[in-house]
């Protein structure tokens, strides 16, 4: 059975909205041109492919099913647990929990332990891990060869899957390789890389902890992958909250002018004058007080964490609409004086129709550019907010929480570096891809960039 959290519903809404927008714009010639420009830009296609892959992972992580867990003794658990499809796919990685820290690809724990062997002799040694490299009899000599073999296998599977995928694409779209769009080949090559990485993770994941384990022995790779959804929710949902306010108020201020303009300008000056972090902190503090006093409303831990994530998006949205609103107001002021708008007005088109048919479509490029530009900033902001403890709930998987908990491990001797590195690398990949895509979108949609 399907169970949904509020953020899941919001994610589906966002994805459906995006698909509808793309489908509708593909029918219009003047909107197809900028998209063709993006697909002509190699960097644009490569980054779009990566962002879409992250999005796919996020969506898989949002489809939640009531799942009966298979226990180690072969039976199934009595109570169903709501698990996402991604959780079910990652079951081997998710359930292989060690006792405590272990290095990437390690077969022994990271710290020495007192150990009593069968003969009753006490030894001070690195104990073998429960799962990592447990299939090897003689890890010291065999491990390297085994890892290389598994990597090779993973690469081969990835390549095969990719070839299959291309074959299917050829079947559905005959002229795929005859296209003049430069970016398509780069996109397919990026797909090959993604397929190979997924293949390697699939073949190595159930035998080793590819990125090590953390303090309670949980696989770091699993945490990093689960964090993708949080990053996407923060970047995406905030946009949903922000867009209606920014578009509505921005158009109204520019179009009606007079006292409407004054009120709206006053609103955004006031809001933007409050330092963003402090406003978020104040709102989150208040939300915590509210949750502490109304425990009945949030029954499960998951509900609570989800509400907090939703609230964070809401607050971020409220604090971040002012920039776009200001832009839209200025643009609307310009557009409303254009001849075609004046003509439409003279022909008796109503105000609402005027805004909808003549003004809104002409500011959409600004909206589009702002959405993609803001996205990466929001993903980065999540990490900072979690560090000050005003971000997502500590029980939610997020890169910010990973960084926050592993920050102190840098002072350990020897240091535990893999948690921190994993969080930064994942975050960097998503943000870099989003930034590069934002550049491609701006080049394609912003009329000032046409050279």
């Amino acid at each position: 059975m399907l169970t949904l959290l509020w953020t899941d519903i919001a994610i589906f809404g966002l994805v459906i909205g995006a698909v509808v927008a793309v489908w509708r714009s593909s029918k219009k010639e003047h909107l197809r041109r900028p998209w063709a420009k993006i697909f002509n830009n190699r960097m644009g296609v490569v980054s779009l492919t990566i962002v879409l892959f992250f999005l796919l992972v996020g969506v898989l992580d949002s489809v939640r099913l009531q799942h009966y867990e298979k226990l180690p003794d072969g039976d199934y658990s009595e109570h169903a647990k709501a698990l996402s499809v991604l959780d079910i796919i990652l079951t081997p990685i998710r359930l292989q929990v060690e006792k405590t820290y272990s290095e990437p690809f390690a077969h022994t724990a990271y710290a020495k332990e007192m150990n009593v062997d069968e003969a009753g002799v006490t030894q001070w040694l690195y104990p073998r891990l429960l799962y990592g490299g447990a299939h090897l009899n003689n890890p010291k000599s065999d491990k390297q060869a085994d890892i290389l073999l598994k990597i090779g296998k993973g690469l081969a599977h990835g390549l095969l899957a990719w070839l299959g995928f291309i074959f299917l694409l050829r079947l559905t779209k005959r002229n795929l390789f005859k296209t003049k769009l430069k970016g398509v080949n780069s996109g397919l090559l990026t797909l090959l890389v993604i397929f190979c990485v997924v293949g390697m993770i699939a073949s190595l994941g159930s035998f080793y902890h590819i990125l090590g384990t953390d303090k309670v022995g949980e696989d770091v790779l699993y945490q990093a992958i689960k964090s993708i959804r949080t990053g996407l929710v923060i970047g995406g949902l905030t946009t949903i909250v922000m867009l209606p306010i920014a578009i509505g108020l921005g158009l109204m201020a520019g179009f009606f002018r007079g006292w409407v303009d004054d009120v709206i300008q006053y609103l955004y000056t006031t809001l933007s004058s409050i330092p963003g972090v402090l406003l978020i902190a104040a709102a989150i503090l208040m939300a915590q007080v509210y949750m502490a006093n109304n425990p009945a409303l949030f029954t499960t831990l998951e509900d609570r964490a989800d509400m907090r994530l939703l609230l964070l998006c809401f607050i971020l949205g409220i604090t971040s609409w002012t920039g776009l609103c200001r832009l839209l107001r200025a643009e609307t002021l310009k557009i409303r004086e254009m001849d075609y708008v004046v003509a439409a007005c003279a022909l008796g088109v109503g105000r609402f129709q005027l805004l909808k048919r003549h003004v809104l479509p002409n500011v959409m490029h600004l909206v589009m550019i702002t959405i993609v530009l803001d996205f990466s900033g929001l993903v980065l902001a999540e990490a900072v907010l979690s560090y000050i403890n005003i971000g997502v709930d500590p029980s939610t998987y997020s890169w910010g929480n990973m960084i926050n908990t592993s920050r102190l491990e840098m002072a350990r001797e020897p240091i535990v570096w893999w948690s921190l590195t994993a969080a930064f690398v994942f975050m960097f990949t998503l943000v870099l891809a989003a930034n590069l895509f934002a550049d491609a979108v701006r080049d394609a949609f912003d009329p000032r960039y046409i050279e």
Partner: protein
Amino acid sequence: MINYIIRRLFYVVPVLLGVNILTFVLFFVVNTPDDMARMQLGDKHVTQEAVDNWKQQRGYHLPLLWNEQEEGLQKASNTIFFKKSVGLFVFDLGISDNGRDIVADITQRMWPSLAIAIPSLIFGVLANITFALLLIFYRSSVLEFAGLFLCITLMSISGLFYIIAGQYFIGKLLALTPISGYAPGIDAFKFILLPVFIGVVGGLGSGARWYRTLFLEEAAKDYVRTAKAKGLSDLQVLFRHVLKNTMIPILTGIVVILPLLFMGSLITESFFGIPGLGSYTIDAISSQDFAIVRSMVFLGSFLYIIGLLMTDISYTLVDPRVRLD
């Protein structure tokens, strides 16, 4: 000019009032002082007396907006809104929830914040301008492409990474600077080196890209073409004409953030253990000291609005085409 400033100052009042009402609603209406007291004293096992006592000590026992028990003007003045919010207008920030004078704390803590923020700003702007000029100078070459890619890469790295990596490599492995801490006076020098360096590197990506677009806009103007046509070399055009004229948007862009330098940087200060206003705010947030957070919200908005005003004035000073009337 003076008229304009006075008019703008009058415009500041309603904005500050708006900020004030917003913080009031956020801190006192969404959750009553009772809720705050319970939260601070520990959730469920608190007697009503303890709550009342806590409120009495901090002056939260008064009614929110209207005091029925008082006479005349006191009806409006002897309330939480008047005592806690209106006082902010004359910078009577009051006493923090743990009993310290907030104004005294702020005047003492703003110096370390400034010691970090001012050098970071100066060196940051210098580094950004230099990098942007290099990008312009090598326009449409492989070097520019590489430089732009470097900018995007620098932008995509989390600010936390710069701090943690800097502390680990420069502070711990190379032991060039102390990892964290602060000392007053001239000794502060070695403590501010690392935070300033990290601040400059962390801001280089987005800063250089932003300045580059400013330079490009300026370089597309007619007088630049004229200058080139009459035979000036690229370097001369760049330094004599483009750089000079681009300084207008650059300088006015800096003016806006000048007042906010007092507030310090939340993350940098708390990572490096610098006793400035940024770490003060962070501590207040984590210990849920509502009085301090409220004061800092107000102070931050006030400084931002001052910054906007200063920007408008600085336009008239540096750009003779702009007149404020």
